[in-house]
């Protein structure tokens, strides 16, 4: 436990408070008033999204680690008038760093990406990621061309960055340092998740 926390606190992000992922997810969901789509990445990221209160516009990704941002990009391209949020873990993002430059190149105005960074693969036993003590998610993102990338200093700053992204002229990435406290699990029925999501996006009509 002490090793785990020292890993989390030794990440290069400076002047950023270690926050709670479920609290941050709840704060995000509370600010969504316009049927915004939210893509929750694999593991605790979508467990938190489920626990924060199910919405028809939530998609809970149960497999395909690393694809929350690409899936969200697809939704954002298909529905350019809808705001799309994506929640992803730092370990997941490491699997698909290339997507950041793809998103920067396409530059969808309606996409906000949130990276939950605790420096560990929490769900598999909290092993440190290979980036934990050396890499800075925001520096990587900025280097990939996502100029609207920032660490949230604390909860209020997180809310401010979320609000700012709603009227941004390009994609936004918000990184948050989080603790390692999980909250539960998402009900796992992928076809139902997908069908509800498509209903929530207005692509399917209810029977």
């Amino acid at each position, binding site marked *: 436990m002490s090793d785990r926390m020292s890993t989390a606190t030794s990440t290069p992000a400076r002047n950023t408070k270690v926050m709670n992922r479920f609290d941050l997810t709840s704060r995000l969901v509370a600010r969504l008033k316009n049927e915004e*789509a939210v*893509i929750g990445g694999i593991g605790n990221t979508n467990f938190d999204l489920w626990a924060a209160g199910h919405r028809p516009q939530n*998609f809970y*990704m*149960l*497999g*395909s*680690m*690393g*694809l929350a*941002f*690409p*899936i*969200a*990009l*697809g*939704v*954002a*391209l*298909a*529905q350019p008038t*809808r705001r799309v949020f994506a929640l992803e873990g730092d370990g997941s993002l490491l699997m*698909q*760093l*290339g*997507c950041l*430059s*793809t998103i920067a*190149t*396409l530059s969808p105005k309606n996409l906000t990406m949130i990276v939950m960074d605790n420096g560990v693969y929490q769900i598999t036993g909290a092993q440190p990621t290979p980036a934990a003590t050396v890499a800075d998610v925001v520096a990587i993102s900025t280097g990939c061309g996502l100029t609207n990338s920032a660490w949230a200093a604390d909860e209020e700053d997180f809310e401010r960055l979320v609000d700012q992204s709603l009227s941004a002229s390009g994609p936004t990435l918000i990184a948050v340092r989080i603790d390692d406290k999980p909250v539960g699990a998402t009900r796992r029925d*992928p*076809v139902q*998740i*997908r069908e509800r*999501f*498509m209903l929530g*996006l*207005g*692509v399917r009509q209810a029977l």
Partner: protein
Amino acid sequence: MAAADGQNLPQAFQEKAWHEVVLQTLKRNEIRLVPYVPDRVLTTLIKNIHADPFFTTFPTAREEEAVGIVSGAWMGGMRGAVLMQTSGFATLANVLASLVALILSPLLTGGKAFEK
């Protein structure tokens, strides 16, 4: 392209290059989103898709990234297809099993097509 020899294709298709057939088939089926990781044999198709304003097309860093994008777009009501080479297809085992098969989204994959 199973019918690379043209034996079983309709008359109109036999007079066209394979990449024209693919492009027109994508259009006829309202498939607008075409992310790709290029292959040399796909060069003409990619060039023509870029030149046609009907399509939204762009390269991705990896093939599974492209599959994620078209899966998201399909759930959002936009059809897509991914272009890749066979070695790229070989990297897709996990995403096909844990995203495409899991949520039962339709996916069209094109293997390597050979010029006659």
